[in-house]
């Protein structure tokens, strides 16, 4: 990463943007799976069996982690834009690490449940 961008605020932007893009890629597949339910139990059951594969479970874990990360960093952006700033030079930097930690913990809980 260029020295210009090696700071917390930019990393939070990257995390928020990339997790958002990943979720945007996921959503059509999510709706496709929901749509299968309308086409009969057999096709849905087939998809659900596919969703039990270990690789898909790992992908689900990534999805849950990214969703939490996107939520936490999105809340930070809303706070930046709607609330008064505590210090002019501090764009809520102290929200970034807890947000990343929350994503890790939620991902860990999910992983323990599926393991």
């Amino acid at each position, binding site marked *: 990463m260029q*020295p*210009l961008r090696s700071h917390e*605020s930019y990393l939070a*932007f990257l995390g928020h943007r990339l997790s958002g893009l990943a979720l945007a890629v996921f959503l059509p597949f999510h709706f496709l799976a929901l749509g299968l339910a309308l086409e009969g139990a057999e096709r849905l059951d087939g998809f659900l069996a596919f969703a039990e594969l270990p690789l898909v479970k790992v992908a689900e874990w990534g999805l849950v982690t990214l969703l939490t990360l996107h939520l936490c960093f999105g809340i930070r*952006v809303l706070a*930046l*834009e709607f609330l008064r700033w505590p210090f002019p030079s501090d*764009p809520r930097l102290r929200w970034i690490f807890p947000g990343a930690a929350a994503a890790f913990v939620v991902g860990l809980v999910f992983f323990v449940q599926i393991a």
Partner: protein
Amino acid sequence: MTETLTVRIWRGKAEGRFESYEVPARANQTVLDVVTEVQRSLEPALAYRFACRVGVCGSCAMTVNGRPRWTCRTHVRRLGGEGTLTLEPLRNLPHIKDLVSDLTPFFEKWHKAGGRFAGTAGRQDPPQRVDPQSASRLAASAAIECINCAVCYSACDVVAWDQDYLGPAALNRAWTLVNDARHGAREETLDRAFAAGGCASCHSQGNCTRHCPVELSPSQSIAGLKRSTLFGPPKVGEPG
């Protein structure tokens, strides 16, 4: 034996090359001192820009080891870099020659954002009273000391992606005027800041605030403009 500093300097315009120079490493030397030494001793044709040398005029900014900085107040020994400096012109601006960027687009956007003060009183009128502790004046004062060095403009990735984006300095200026009770075109300035390429294009990356040499927070000013899109312009003159 005198220790030396290796300086890699961009020569040319958009097309060009780095050339290396060796200058004595001194106990107290700024990056601007180094550039001046190169020009006076080694490369008389080297083009660079400076005026005050004390961090007031904002004219000596360039890219130092990958970051935009004001070179007159940047001490070489604080940069690390193990005896090597890499100097380039500011990015996001046309290059004129060597270390000199053309700041015309920067100032054009400053005006496009409604940055010109429009007075409402004449010279015969008494001075307008401004409460220095009012919320609007405090907001304006927090952002007013911009020296227009274009470091934030050069640091901003959105400027790099979107040539219509007004940039942090222009929007910071707009925010000071929107909060200035004496400005006669507050609504117009706000409209310009909301228009395409204005505050809504900011992605809150924070490169501007991170690199501002006078420690202003254009991010905060842009956030203030964004808030005004929903809640209306700040009320001037109310207690802070």
